[in-house]
């Protein structure tokens, strides 16, 4: 504790008039704040007040728009400082397991983070073992993160954050959606860690006011501003309230003190009512996973029945079974005495359902949403307008009628959802976590509406929540955990049954009883030896540098694991390219053979039959029918029965014998001009050879000098499409698919949030890009192998030239095209955009300007230059050269060098375009 006084002087984080905006919305409206060192600081406030923005700014993950933020004695705006301190900061973003990799196991996740901080294999092993045993995750090192419960994910997230012994730990809503037992364990864990590392500062944000009591110092936020700071007791005494929630409400601007924070719920008439809902042994399995296990309850009409439990405990699944959205695997549910059948329309008219998260059409206005639902529920014509007007007034939606639902504040949106859910005056309401993320005032308002519906209109309300204080307002509640209902009774009776504490403690006690049967000790406490020793500060992780192979390989390793476990991407890469190879290889063919034709022979002489015979004998043409008239000829062409019609005039034979040059007409179907040109060429060829035969027979040969034009079809003597197309197609597929997958892999991290690990760890941009590129180059090479095997064995196009040089070109080409994918990923932000932009950007130059349709040398202007600066040009040339033209390695070296040149340019551009911070 020596020197503590000196440290306390200097705040660990100092904010000076920090402003942050997203478009027109202001997230932070000028915040100035000193955060004391070595303490546990709570950032409290409901969703959307700017807590997360503040956290990411402090972590250096977001670019500061205005103001100054000093973190660990330096300006976090400066890159040098960020690079220096990022190894001392750990950031766990909001969302369950947001920065974890769901396809990776617990151990693999931790191992990845260890590698990023440059720890040796031995060191990683030791640290991981200690962290896992400290958090009780030790029995599951090989479980995939996607299969962990919310509480376990958060513990793992904490482990990942602690792997490098940070001095500043930032936890953004670490306990939202986690069951109360795990929540308690989580806080105990943090307390233990702090007792071992007292110099560490922890900044935690939370929306649960009741949790805030355990923090040393609080920052209460609302609408981008700080309402108050101080210790919990200071804040409570300041506002003369005895709970933090009440204190917070009274701090809100414009809050009137006469308004009582406590909501009054009139007692429910106790006479026995008919049953509204009955569940008997409801069970739902997804594969081997039991989501809901033998759930029973009965709910009376007009009752407010609460379902309390953490995320993923089966609340939503139970509700879906009650509404008929999901058929139960076992058991029965009945509403108003009738069994719920999946898809029964009758039940739906009597039930209103409000699903988790806002699920109305955010692209419609409030009015449009209301009208749409009134129509879909077939409200009688005359009632519609009055019902909508009544609801608008009752729910206070008048002022926002013409606003888009997307632009509404969360509280108003939830009211709109409720209005829509009851528009058809249902007898029962099923509400799935309707108030998560809503601020306390709006939540009380929402509850007033619910109480009114229940007590005045006798609507049965079935509501799920993970807020204890909401559960206390229900007539009866069910405690749900891991698919099972642990207990079901009135809230105060439940708390009394378990020692008379509050509901949360009762719930924890119930969970412990339930889990006690499974695990003897579910929450191992830390002993001093369990945490990694960090006395030696010289073994601090290396700071960010331009390029460290270990970090790049950490990304490669992780990406490879993810690819191998993702059937969709693997399927797209290999089955997709094989399928397209078949389609292109067989589908694009310029060969025209067996042209259907017919003859209108108006002469019927030996000479005319001779002429027709020449056509048939040429093998290009296939005679269909005989034509009877000019009309018939036109009709046959029109109906697409023939592509060519030959008209031989009357007296053809006589005129030929007389030498008066009879005229033969050929009609070609010109719909497809390129095909028509080919047909024309064939007709002329046959015609010319027939004339030569005639001349030879007639002995006129000497009359004309014999000009022979010898056509030498080089490389492809039989002039078959397959020899030109099949080697060209891989060039297109290898640019399209690897570049799409590459772009998606980066953008996916942006979309899912794991890019945060790149922002806040000492990874350099080059390490990130090259690390991610390596597995895709490998994947591209496997594709190349598959396509080459198809070329040779399926299409029968052998490699006549240098196969080794072709392989070298393929490597260079795939590096170049994945580079294009990386470049595109730097300016797209959604995976869909990445797929379509990459397709549009790569397909056009690859098909039109790279020599498939016409050689690059013959293109003009922009098209020519696009071809010259596009790698496909060189690879396609090399591929056709190696396969069909039989070019040697030295003849292909030019293409290889051109392909190699793309790599530094693209890498440089992609590195420059990639941001190390969020916008």
């Amino acid at each position, binding site marked *: 504790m020596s020197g503590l006084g000196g440290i306390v002087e200097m705040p660990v984080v100092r904010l000076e008039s920090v402003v942050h905006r997203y478009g027109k919305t202001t997230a932070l409206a000028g915040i100035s704040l000193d955060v004391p060192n070595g303490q546990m600081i709570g950032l409290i406030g409901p969703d959307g007040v700017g807590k997360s923005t503040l956290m990411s700014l402090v972590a250096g993950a977001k670019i500061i728009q205005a103001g100054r933020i000093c973190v660990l004695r330096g300006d976090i705006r400066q890159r040098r400082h960020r690079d220096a301190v990022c190894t001392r900061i750990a950031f766990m973003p909001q969302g369950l397991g947001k920065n974890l990799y769901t396809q990776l196991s617990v151990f693999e996740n931790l191992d990845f983070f260890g590698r990023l901080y440059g720890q040796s294999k031995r060191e990683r092993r030791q640290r991981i073992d200690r962290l896992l045993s400290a958090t009780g995750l030790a029995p599951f090192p090989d479980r995939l993160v996607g299969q962990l419960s919310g509480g376990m994910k958060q513990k793992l997230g904490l482990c990942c954050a602690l792997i490098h012994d940070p001095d500043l730990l930032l936890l953004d809503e670490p306990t939202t959606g986690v069951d109360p037992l795990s929540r308690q364990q989580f806080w105990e864990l943090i307390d233990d860690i702090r007792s071992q590392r007292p110099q560490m500062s922890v900044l935690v944000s939370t929306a649960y006011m009741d949790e805030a009591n355990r923090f040393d110092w609080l920052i209460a936020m609302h609408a981008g501003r700080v309402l108050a700071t101080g210790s919990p007791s200071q804040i409570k005494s300041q506002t003369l309230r005895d709970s933090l929630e009440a204190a917070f409400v009274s701090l809100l601007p414009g809050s009137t003190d006469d308004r009582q924070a406590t909501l009054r719920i009139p007692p429910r008439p106790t006479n026995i009512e008919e049953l509204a809902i009955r569940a008997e042994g409801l069970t739902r399995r997804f594969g081997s996973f039991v989501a809901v296990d033998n759930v029973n309850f009965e709910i009376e009409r007009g009752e407010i029945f609460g379902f309390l439990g953490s995320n993923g405990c089966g609340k939503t699944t139970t509700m*879906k079974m009650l509404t008929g959205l999901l058929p139960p695997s076992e058991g029965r549910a009945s509403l108003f005495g009738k069994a719920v059948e999946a898809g029964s329309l009758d039940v739906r008219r009597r039930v209103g359902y409000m699903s988790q998260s806002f699920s109305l059409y955010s692209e419609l206005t409030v009015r449009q949403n209301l009208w749409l639902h009134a129509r879909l529920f077939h409200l009688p014509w005359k009632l519609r307008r009055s019902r909508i007007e009544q609801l608008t007034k009752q729910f206070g939606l008048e002022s926002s009628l013409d606003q888009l639902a997307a632009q509404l504040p969360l509280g108003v949106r939830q009211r709109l959802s409720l209005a829509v859910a009851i528009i058809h005056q249902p007898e029962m309401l099923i509400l799935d976590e309707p108030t998560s993320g809503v601020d306390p005032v709006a939540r009380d308002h929402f509850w007033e509406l619910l109480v009114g519906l229940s007590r005045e209109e006798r609507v049965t309300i079935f509501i799920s929540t993970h807020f204890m204080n909401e559960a206390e307002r229900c007539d009866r509640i069910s405690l749900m955990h891991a698919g099972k209902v642990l207990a079901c009774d009135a809230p105060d009776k439940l708390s009394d049954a378990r020692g008379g504490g509050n509901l949360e403690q009762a719930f924890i006690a119930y969970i412990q009883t339930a889990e006690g049967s499974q695990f003897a000790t579910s929450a191992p406490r830390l002993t001093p030896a369990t945490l990694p020793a960090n006395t030696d500060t010289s073994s601090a992780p290396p700071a960010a540098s331009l390029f460290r192979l270990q970090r790049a390989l950490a990304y490669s390793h992780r990406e490879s694991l993810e690819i191998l476990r993702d059937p969709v991407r693997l399927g797209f890469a290999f089955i997709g390219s094989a399928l397209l190879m078949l389609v292109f290889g067989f589908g*694009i063919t310029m060969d025209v053979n067996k042209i259907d034709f017919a003859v209108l022979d108006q002469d019927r002489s030996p000479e005319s039959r001779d002429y027709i015979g020449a056509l048939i004998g040429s093998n290009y043409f296939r005679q269909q029918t005989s034509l009877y008239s000019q009309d018939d000829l036109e009709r046959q062409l029109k109906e697409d029965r023939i592509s060519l019609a030959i008209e031989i005039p009357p007296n053809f034979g006589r005129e030929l014998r007389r030498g008066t040059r009879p005229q033969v007409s050929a009609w070609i179907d010109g719909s497809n001009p390129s095909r028509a040109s080919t047909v024309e060429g064939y007709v002329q060829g046959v015609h010319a050879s027939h004339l030569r035969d005639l001349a030879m027979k007639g002995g006129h040969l000497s009359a004309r000098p014999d000009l022979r034009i010898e056509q030498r079809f080089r490389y492809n003597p039989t002039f078959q499409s397959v020899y030109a197309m099949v080697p060209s197609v891989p060039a297109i597929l290898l640019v399209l698919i690897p570049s799409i997958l590459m772009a998606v892999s980066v953008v996916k991290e942006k979309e899912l949030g794991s890019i945060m690990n790149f922002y806040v760890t000492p990874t350099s941009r080059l390490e990130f890009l090259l690390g991610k590129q390596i597995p895709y180059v490998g994947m591209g090479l496997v594709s190349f192998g598959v396509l080459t095997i198809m070329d040779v064995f399926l299409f029968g196009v052998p490699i006549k030239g240098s196969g080794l040089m072709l392989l070298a070109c393929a490597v260079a080409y795939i590096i170049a095209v994945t580079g294009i994918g990386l470049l595109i990923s730097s300016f797209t932000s959604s995976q869909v955009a990445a797929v379509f932009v990459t397709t549009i950007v790569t397909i056009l130059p690859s098909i039109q300007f790279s020599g498939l349709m016409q050689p690059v040398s013959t293109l003009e202007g922009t098209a020519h230059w696009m071809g010259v600066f596009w790698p496909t040009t060189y690879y396609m040339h090399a591929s056709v050269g190696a396969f069909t033209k039989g070019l040697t390695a030295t003849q292909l070296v030019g293409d290889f060098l051109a392909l190699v040149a793309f790599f530094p340019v693209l890498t440089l551009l992609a590195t420059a375009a990639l941001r190390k911070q969020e916008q």
Partner: protein
Amino acid sequence: MWQRLSSIFWLGTKELRSLKRDKVLLAFLVYSFSLAIYVQARGTSSDVHNASIGIVDEDRSQLSRRIANAFFEPNFNEPVLIEAGEVDAAMDASRFMFVLDIPPNFERHIVQGRPAEIQVNIDATAMGQAGIGANYIQAIVQREVSRFQSRSDRSAPLAIELVIRRAFNANGNPVWFASLMGLVNQVTMLTVILTGAALIREREHGTIEHLLVMPLTSLDIALAKIWSNSLVILLAATFAVYVVIVRALQVPVAGSIPLFLSGVAVYLFFATALGVFLGTVTRTMPQFAMLVILIIVALQMLSGGMTPIDSQPPWLQAITFFLPSRHFVSVAQAIIYRGAGFSNVWPSFATVALMAFGFFAAALALFRRSIASR
């Protein structure tokens, strides 16, 4: 019944409103049915264009120079004179698509009426142009030689005159073909993307569950998506035909445009059903996007809009028979170019409708099942 129809109607108007708000998709839609078709039609050329040609003139006579001068733009680039020894290297490096070799004493042999031979080397890997270009070269050389001869002596005229006429597109204008096929491809692509994306958007936003707790069946939901998206594409296609193809690109239409548009409507039933199908089998937008690319490319490549159906191997033709896009392409070509009437094309209409119906039934079954299993 009446109630269901009204539900389907109002649900469809919701789709239209959503689309109206999605500026990116709207911009993509407008671009695809205007500029994209225009550029594609103008930009592609199936004819020989700027073909590179090299000439080895070992004769250096008046005739050989005349032949060399007979190649000019737009079909050919200005010929480059090269040495006989360079031919192989130049062709290996793809400098020339064609190399003409005029042997020594060529003119003398022609004048003396002795047999003479010119060699044309063709890069037969340039499939699109090599064949047609070779024919052009042959014709040009023959013309120059006979002009040269007619100056020096009169030879017997050809015994039979061949007059070649092209039906439906007399000048072989590539714009006609490219514009219509461009439209057909855009219809397929946009419809599938629009419908599938609408479905996945509902799933991702959770609104699909919201719909399912209302008195609506999955059939109602699917039909609402089908009619609204079909209407949008049909309007876009109508615009593209009248404004882009007929007005801007000046393509003459032989048949009835309303008949063509009703063909589009029938085809849209299939394409929207495909969208529903793909939107159901994929769980997320990125998966959908990847799958769409694979399917669309196959549909477009094998429909006869790029290369003729006749050129496909027979076993492939048997498979592509089951692609509605193939029948749609043939209907489109028959009506627009050949002026076919309803009596000519109704079998194709019926085939497309039948396939669309079958596909729709399958897609709907899958859609129902996917909802039940969530």
